[in-house]
């Protein structure tokens, strides 16, 4: 018997900051995830959350590399991928330069990038829907 598989086949790459805006890692008080993140959940996006941008780069290199590998494989198999870069955070909150370097290293196109701000709301999730394009 074939089981029903409910995956959405679309993945949003997002910053730790928009998931954990009140984290002590950012010197802040506790706060719930942003309306932006909630909207992605409601709209069925799978989330690939990148490591906190305040972590040591050497602790994140391997995680960034395998994340990019996963994204390449998703796109090869027809999944949609969008990166939500946070314009007012270092490394756009998603280690963007390191991600782009990983894509270039293996000669693959970088997926669509949408720019948001660190106080993004549910409305900003529209931009991700708008960025959906056929896989490379």
């Amino acid at each position, binding site marked *: 018997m*074939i*089981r*029903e*598989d*409910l*995956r*959405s*086949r*679309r*993945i949003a790459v997002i910053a*730790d900051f928009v*998931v*954990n805006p*009140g*984290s*002590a*890692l950012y010197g802040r*008080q*506790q706060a*719930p*995830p942003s309306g932006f993140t909630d909207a*992605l*959940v409601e709209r*069925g*996006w*799978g*989330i*690939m*959350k990148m*490591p*906190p941008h305040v*972590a*040591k780069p050497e*602790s*994140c*290199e*391997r*995680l960034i590399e*395998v*994340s990019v*590998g*996963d994204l390449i*494989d*998703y796109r090869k*198999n027809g*999944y949609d991928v969008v990166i939500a870069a946070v314009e007012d955070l270092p490394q756009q909150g998603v280690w963007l330069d390191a991600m782009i370097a990983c894509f270039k290293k293996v000669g693959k196109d970088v997926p669509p990038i949408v720019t948001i701000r660190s106080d993004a709301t549910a409305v900003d999730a529209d931009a991700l829907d708008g960025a959906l394009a056929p896989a490379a």
Partner: protein
Amino acid sequence: MQDEPRRVAYVAHCLMNQNAKVSEFAKCAGVFSPLVERLVKNCFELQQLPCPEMSHMGAVRWWASREQYDTPGYRRHCRNLAKSVVDLVMLHQDAGYDVVIVGLDGSPSSGVRLTSTKASWGGRPEGAVHGGSDRRPGMGIWMEELKFEFEERGLAFPRATGVAMDAQDFDLQKAMLELDEFLTEGKENAA
């Protein structure tokens, strides 16, 4: 002023991204929201573990049992990822966080209390996976290597549980009751 201890949950990758599941195992579109809602309600921050199966064999991998993943190469891959994860856990612990791990019970890699088993799988896939794998108590390979990395650094493996979405008899209500108990117990201990 922050009164309660900070808390963070490191969750199996697929609990936030069901697209990483092996075919026929995605039980929702993207994020498994019953888990996230409970973590937020209990004031947990959220960290996502990498999925070593996805990075090792990709999105169109075959079903596989714990025995098939139990190779030196796959364990090495898991251990490399574990080094980065433990670095991040230490970052949280140094900032005063209580850390828990939420894996995926029934998974050959991410199971915490329950994993898969089928020693006979291998070779020609056609027809071989009929009926699926069985389940047995114990950790999957990824969770085991993560635990080993903690131990090698002289650190205690964080309190951990698993959501049994890969169990053959997955019962959402029962799983969420167990999770509530796990999260509440931790809150009482940390307070």
